[in-house]
Structures are given as C-alpha cells and as structure tokens.
C-alpha cells in the first residue's frame, strides 16, 4: 500500500515536471514558428521583387541580350 502511494506520488510529480518542460519547449517552438513565418514573408517579398517583370526584363535585355520572341519563333513542344 505504501509503495503504491509512493509510486503514485512520484508519477504525479514526474508528469507535472514533464508537463512544465514540454511547456518550455513548446514556447520556444512557438517563438521559432513565428520567427520562421516572418522570415518566410520577407523571403516571399524578396522573391516577388526579384521576379518582378521590371527586374527580369532589365536583366534579360541588358545583361543577357535577350529579346521578345515573335509569334512564329515560339514553338510549343508536343
């Protein structure tokens, strides 16, 4: 009986301790999640800026010497 009560008491304390530890971890992960979400947003903005037609157009024309194809130059592969 004594062992049973002792065991129950230890289990209770241990589970409470674990709960608190998991709480700490969860808080950290939530902070991380929010930080990553913000980084993701900033990267999406960066990507959108880089992919903007103004940026791509100037790079393609000035840096790579490309130009718009005429209709007959566009060949759609089957």
């Amino acid at each position, binding site marked *: 009986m004594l062992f049973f009560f002792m065991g129950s008491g230890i289990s209770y304390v241990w589970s409470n301790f674990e709960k608190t530890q998991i*709480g700490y971890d*969860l808080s950290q992960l939530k902070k991380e999640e929010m930080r990553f979400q*913000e980084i993701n947003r900033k990267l*999406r903005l960066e990507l959108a800026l880089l992919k903007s*037609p103004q940026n791509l157009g100037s790079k393609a024309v000035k840096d790579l010497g490309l130009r718009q194809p005429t*209709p007959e130059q566009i060949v759609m592969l089957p």
Partner: protein
Amino acid sequence: MKVKEKKWIRFRIYVVTIFFLLGFGVILARAYQLQVLESDYLRGTAENGIIGTTKLPPERGTIYDREGNELALSVHVGSVFAHPKQIKEKSKTAKRLSRILGEKKAKILKLLRRDRSFVWIKRKISPTLTQQVSDLKIDGIGVTTETRRYYPGREIAAHLIGFSGADNQGLEGLEKRYDDSLKGPQHRLIRMRDALGRSFSINRTDPSGRGMHHLFLTIDKEIQYKAQQALKIAVKKARAKGGHCIVVNPETGEILAMAVVPEFNPNAFSKYRPDQWRNRIVTDCFEPGSTLKAFLLSASLEESVVTPLSQFHCEEGAYKVGGRVVHDTHKYGKLSVSDIIVYSSNIGAIKIGQKLGYARFCSYLKKFGFSTKTGIGLLGERKGFIREAEKARTIDRATLFFGQGLTVTSLQLTMAMAAIANGGKLMRPYVVKKIVDESGGLVQETRPKVVRRVISTRTAMRVTKVLEGVVGSEGTAPKAAIRGFRVAGKTGTSQKVDPKTKRYSKSKYVAIFVGFAPVERPKLVILALIDEPKGVVYGGLVAGPVFKDVGSWSLNHLKVNPQPDLLAVAEAKAKALVLDPPEDSGNSAKSEGVNKIAGELRQGLLPDFKGMGMREVLKRGRALGLKVSLKGSGLAVKQKPEAGSPLNAVKSVSVSFNPPG
C-alpha cells in the same frame, strides 16, 4: 468527582470549544474575503506576476494576381518611440539615436522636447536598427513591431490595387474597397512565465474573432506590365497628357489588365499628387467619338433598318444639320454601311442614325451598358451621361451617332465592345477572382455573370465582319493589325471640351482604339486611349499601335496560336522564313517554295515536311494547329499522313527524322 470539579471541566471545554469556533470563524471569514470578495483583484495581481501579454502587430492579407504572384504583402518592421517627459538627457539621447537611425540630431531633439507624453521617433524601419536602439537601454525610449505594406511590382496595377496607410488601413483602390476583408485581427500573445522570467506557455488570442483574408485578382501581372509599358511608350511618343489601356476576357468579363499613365509607385504614394492615384479607367468620362459607330451599326443591323450593303450618300464631306455643318475628314459620295464604318464617315453615321432614330439608339446604348455603372465594384466609378430624347436639340440628335454629346468611361466602352466580341452578351466586369482565408479556404468566389443579351449572335457576327475592315489596309487603323490573327475594332478621335470656353477645343483630343482578337474566337478585348496627344491625333495612328503591341504579346503569352493561312500569306508576302531553301539555291527557288507552301495551304492540303529540321517542322505544324509527334533526329524523311492530305481531316502528324548523309 465533586460537582465543583465537573463544572470547572465543563467550563474549560466550553472555553476551548469557543476558542476553536472563533478561530474557525476567523479563518472562514478570511477565506471568504480572499476567495470571494477580493478574488478578481488577487487573481489579477497573481496573473500580472506570471502572465505577460504582448500586442502583436496587426496583420493584413496578401493581394495576388491570377497566377498567385504577390502584388501586395505585409512584413514586420520596427518603429522607435519616446516618452519625452521621462528622458533626462535629451541632447545626448538625440545624438545617440541620430547615429543609429541616420536622422538629423536637431530633428530628433525637436521631437524629444515636445510637451507630449508619447512621440514617434521613426517608424517602419529595419528590425536590426530597432534592435540597436533597444540595446542602448535608454529610459523613455522604446521600440515596437509594426507591419509595413510592400508592393513588389511597384507601379504594376497600382491604380487598381491602391495602397494602405501607416496604420494598416486601406486608403485607395482595392486596399480601401476590401479593407474589411484584408485587415487582420489584433492578436495578443499571452505568455506564462516562471520565477526566472522564462515562458512556459504561449497562447495567441484573437479578441475580435474575425479572420484575415487574401485576395486573388483576375489581373495577369505579365499582361498588366506589358500594357503599362506599351501605353507609356505611346503616351511619351505622342507627348500626351496620359492614357488608359484595358485588357478583358470577353467570354467571362475578367479584367486581365488595367493600365493608367501617368503611373505612381504605391510604396511611396505620398510623393505623388492625389489626382495621380485615381483609377481614371472608372472615374473619368470622355466622349467616345467614332468608336460609337460600332454600336450604331449593331443597333441598326439588329433592328434591320439597314444591311451592310445599304448605300448612303455622304454629301461630299459637308452636311448641314440643325443649323450647323458636319464635316468628314475625307470627301465621300455614295458609301455602303460597311464602308461608312470602315472609313468612319460622320455624315454616313448621321444618315444611318436618322433611319434608326435617336430614342431607339439611346435605348441600345443603355442596353450596351452606357450611362449605368458596370458593377465592377471599384470605388469612384462613374456612370457617364446620355442626353434623353426629349432634351436633345436637332444637332444633338445628329452628333450622337458619331459619338459626340455623351460621355462614357473606358471600362464601359471596353465591356460594350466585349459584348460584340462574345456574340451579343453584356458581361459584368470583375477584378477579384476569389477571396480566401488564412488557411486557403474559399470564402467568396466571383463567377462570370451575363448582365443581359444586347444583340443576337448573328448581328454580332455581321458587325464583327464589318469591324475587321477597320484594321485592313483601307480602314482607319491598319496599325492595329496583329500579324497572324484576325482583328476587329473601331477607332475614335474625339474633341475635348475646353473648360474655359465651354466649347470643343481645337487642340485637345482623345485618341481611342477598341477592338478584339482573334475574330473567330475572341480571347481578348483591348482598349487603348491616349489623352491629349500632340501632333498626330487620330485614334488609329496613336492608339492603334498600343492595341497591336499589347494584343500580339498577350496572345503569345496566353498560348493562342496564330492562324496558319494568315501567317502563311503574311510570310509569303514578306518572303520570310516559311521554308528555308538550301544556301546555294537562287531566289527563284525560294519564291517557288514559298508559292508552293502558300498554294498548298490555300487549297487546304497538308504540306510536305521532308528535308526540314525539327524546329521548322514544329513551327509549321503548330502554325497549322496540328499535334506533331517526332521520331529520331536530323532531317525529316517520312511523314504520316502523307503530304497533300486534306488539312481538315488531319489533327496530328507523325514525322520521322534521320541524320543527313
């Protein structure tokens, strides 16, 4: 035991009992005080010790184009504020802040010396700068996180999207119109802390209970950019005041592009004048000029008052009506209805209109959507004006037929032309394709809506056939023709009213071209309008090239194949690379090859691919609208079906290649 002793014992028992009862009573009273009377206050005090609440910056939904490209999105940025009354060494603080923030010390000092309890020092700056300010640990100086709206496409669709202000509120365009949907909730972060201040529980709450939504527009970012570029070039070339260009899908009413010049950059909207923010496509009205003749023709054919071949005398360029003389740009005698439209004769239009009747034409114009709002749901949309029959003078009754004396918006004119393009249905235009919630769930979807049928499909086809002539070599807009596609449209050059004299100006015009392509199955209706061009002012010459540029590029972008026979004829005419002859062959052989191919196509026969390279075969096959499957490598040696097979029975062709030699 003596009675006296017994009494004494009983007395002591009573005393102890009363003592304990009083003790319990005090404990109960105290418990009641703590648990019931002061519970809220005490709970608050305890929670303040272990629970910390942080206000998160308000969020705002993203605006995407039809392909999911971001057109407007918010990111977190830092802001620095001060409580001037708490700052002791103001000059020293200003100096330290100016070093980090890159602002003048005097400017910061002025803010710190203000007699206020709170001032912003600098808002919406990089979080690294705010971190540096925070590290200074100056009493009375604080940092906070806010959101800043970015428009990565800069000027792209700026007039349509609008912009939002420093406090996350929509100020113009769709940002304002859909502010309630885009505005996110004010989240609070509730953290439970231990004795060392470490968080062991985080919860994000939303006291408002409303969600943030994202918008998906019908705009195609690439077409929008092309429309803005082409328009900008045309406006610059014509030394004009500005211009509009709209691209619409006539089958659905989806707006693919809505360009206004002069442009503005919504990332720095305060640097522009408020009138430059206006979406003039819906807010500005103008006289449509000769473009209205397309609708005169539609109404007249629908009512069977004329046929395209009916003849009218165009009075050799001068016609007296209502005490005034109406002129044509060229002198014409007898012209058919079809030619009146193609040559854009004002006198001819009056004569057609007189047969139709003013009131009947007005009712058709209203059916085409003029003088009512289109229902696009953009802020500031105007409905234009048509003079009622009973208020119209004799001259008004004549000039209306060639587009004077009424006002329309660019959008109304585009949608009316779209009704001709799609076989007679007036569509409701729309720019917001769908609204989704934070997890991507559909909240609202806009579907194509037919407002009404205006003319029959047969009439629309007959009108289209006539309008095709406008871009022909004889018409007023050969510069609007797109190589490889059949195009229909109408030009317009209208005089503007001088606000000072209240008369038609002799130097201020609006040049318009509105049309669609490809004629067989229209994919795009495009309006190009140049406001107050200098020098050449005609719609066909000034606005036509914008239509051609935008149309040609957009059809390519939408993977619409050019028509093979048109391309072949154009190629044959230009002696272009339809069939590359061997290098040693002479000009005669080349022209023979061209003639042979063009001849085969005219007869509707499958050409001979033998001897061609893969690229050439694919190019030719695509031009014929065929599915081409390739086998091997090198030059074409065999094809199935054989050359000369009737084209209308062939849907795909298989070509075998072998290396030469």
